[in-house]
């Protein structure tokens, strides 16, 4: 096992995407390069139109104040970005998104990794399949449906959670989970963990399955115990998946919208606002599309930086057998 710098040329050749080269000449001719470009032209135009144009346009919108009803616009420069700094709800939203990310990393990355290792460690294939299915089923339910389901679970007094707490003698713990400012966001995050946990477990399971059994057999012969094998074999060889999951989880946490909208719509008193719902509130409730676009830019910058971090991490730490 070695840690090596990734060879992209070799990988590209392996999947048959090298450019045609003239015999005895290592340089690609301008004509063949142009001909190759036509294959990606349609996709390139579509990406320009549907991805890059909206990003640029969004920034332009964020420098204006617009009245969507009259169509009147006024250029305000970076005023909407200055307003962001003094908007306490933006900071609440960033804090909530960050909480979402941190808690999701704990459960959906590290927790899911441990669970996947336990499931894949089972000897009986039937049981492995069973537990994979059990944990994956919540991920197959739409997030909107899950949001509604948990809305009923969290209902004060008559909801399943409060009824359960009362049944086990913890009635004084029961509360309006979604109706109190200090519990609403945690209740939503908890629902999200229930929903996403199985999916992460499944992905880690696939990564663990790819590890050759011989490594474990050799380690057992060397006298390595369960924890030693997990620490010295499973963890290093799933590092790439772990890195990917961390980034996907962080990015997802800053794009969260549906579950918050369904369960609290950002309330009570804006306590469960996240950047996505605050963007919606500004644009579609308060008619302030310029400011909403500035919030969108913040989401973009955060997810872009996270994407770069993922690029850097996976290039640096890729492990090859």
């Amino acid at each position: 096992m070695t840690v090596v710098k990734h060879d992209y040329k070799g990988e590209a050749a392996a999947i048959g995407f090298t450019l045609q080269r003239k015999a005895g000449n290592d340089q690609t001719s301008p004509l063949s390069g142009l001909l190759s470009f036509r294959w990606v032209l349609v996709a390139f135009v579509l990406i320009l139109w549907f991805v890059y144009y909206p990003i640029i346009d969004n920034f332009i919108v964020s420098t204006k104040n617009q009245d969507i009803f009259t169509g009147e616009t006024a250029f305000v420069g970076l005023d909407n970005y200055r307003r962001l700094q003094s908007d306490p709800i933006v900071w609440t939203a960033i804090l909530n998104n960050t909480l979402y990310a941190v808690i999701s990393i704990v459960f959906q990355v590290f927790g899911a990794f441990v669970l996947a290792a336990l499931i894949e460690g089972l000897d009986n294939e039937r049981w492995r399949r069973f537990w994979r299915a059990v944990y994956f089923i919540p991920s197959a339910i739409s997030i909107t449906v899950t949001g509604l389901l948990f809305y009923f679970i969290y209902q004060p007094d008559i909801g399943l959670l409060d009824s359960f707490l009362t049944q086990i003698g913890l009635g004084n713990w029961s509360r309006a989970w979604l109706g109190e400012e200090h519990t609403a966001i945690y209740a939503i995050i908890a629902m999200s963990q229930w929903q996403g946990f199985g999916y992460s477990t499944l992905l880690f399971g696939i990564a663990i399955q790819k590890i050759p059994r011989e490594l474990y057999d050799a380690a057992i012969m060397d006298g390595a115990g369960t924890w030693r094998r997990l620490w010295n074999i499973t963890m290093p060889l799933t590092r790439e998946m772990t890195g990917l999951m961390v980034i996907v989880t962080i990015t997802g946490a800053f794009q969260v919208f549906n579950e918050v909208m369904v369960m609290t719509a950002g309330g009570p008193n804006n306590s469960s606002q996240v950047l996505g719902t605050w963007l919606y509130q500004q644009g579609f409730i308060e008619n302030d599309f310029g400011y909403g676009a500035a919030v969108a830019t913040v989401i973009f910058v955060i997810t872009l930086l996270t994407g770069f971090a993922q690029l850097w991490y996976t290039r640096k730490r890729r492990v090859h057998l």
Partner: protein
Amino acid sequence: MKSTTFLSTTSLASFMAAGLIAGSANVALAKDPVVADPDAKVEYSGTLSILTKFGLQQLSPFFVDAAKEYEKLHPGVKVELIQESDDSVKGKTKALVASNSLPDIYFSWTGSWGENFVRGNRAVDLSKVIGPDTAWGKQLAGAAVSAFQYNGKLYGIPLYLDAKFMGYSKPLFEKAGVSEPKTFDELLTACAALRKSGVTPISFGNKEGWPAVHYAGQLLSYNVPQATLEKDFTPATADYSDPGYVLSLTQFKQLIDECSDGSGTNGSSYASALQQFSNAKSAMYYQEIIEFDQSTADGALKRDDFGYFKLPAPKDAKGDVKSIEGAPEGYMINAASKNIPLAIDFMKFVTSADNGKVLSAPPYGQPSATVGGYSADTMNPAVVGGLKVIADSSYLMPWLDTANPPRVAAAWLSGLQALIGGSQTPEQVMEQVKKAAASSK
């Protein structure tokens, strides 16, 4: 998955949606006002699109049936319906405005909501076809038509009348030994007796924020003089300094704490609270007249057991104690529609006396704004009685969240949730509203 692919598919593409939303706000400048011509010939051909607020299961058949009937009368016309719920119609309408895709006919509230369309020249001036001297105008309740009046011109077609009442269960009141309260203090006393009898006095769900605004609105109309309210609804003159505001919020907080589940109500929806009332788990529910039939539709509460009263006014209130919170709701014609005469013709059909009777009777129970558009024989007696109360009221207090500019409305919504939850005092809520009003000038 390749890392480069990941970057482009998550970081950029995920933001694409947000970019598209904001990017779509590149709206064209509004054109000149469009005035409806009473002599225009109606071409019975083409497609007519309509955005309604009747997306709920029990209401949606009304427009479906009306569209089918109209298509049968005029085979060259196809009616396309976009049916939304009370909550979703707000976002949908703004998305359609931002993308210049408003349908030919669209739902509108009165107040600042409707004023937005007028300001942007997106609504047809209907004065010449719906004014008091016109045939159509004479068929509709004059007060309802004039609720859509802006700058002296008429822009809306009222479909039904609406107002807020406290619905109650007669058997639960009887069991607790209470009668209809006549004052605010009597209501609080009744709550104590009802709670003692083992029921929640008032079921209240405020997840959406606007249910609290409805209580507050009625109390404001009792405690703040009408002229002051109207001055404060106008961004240029708003200052929200009348002491009646803080007093109203204090009374509202007391009502929620003593009569409902208090701070927990922020976690329940308006619909859940209605269900609780229908299932006889609570004795009262503050509701719109258009919801009377839903309260007794399929729950334990029977129609004969349903009673109603106007939210009682506090003693020595400085505002108008004969007022009631409510407003007609209706439709506007898109100024950019290619077939304005046809759109007007369709709405004349929808607001006919016959269709009005269908709309006013169960299962819809939406009291028609058409003169002669309801028959007491086919309607829920409570709706008939409620209409009389509306007619006798001295002032229709508009919904706070549609009367105010969006930023002020948002301050009311979040502020009242904070008041219920105990994180803000009435004074702090009003400071928040004042700040929002100042930034909306």
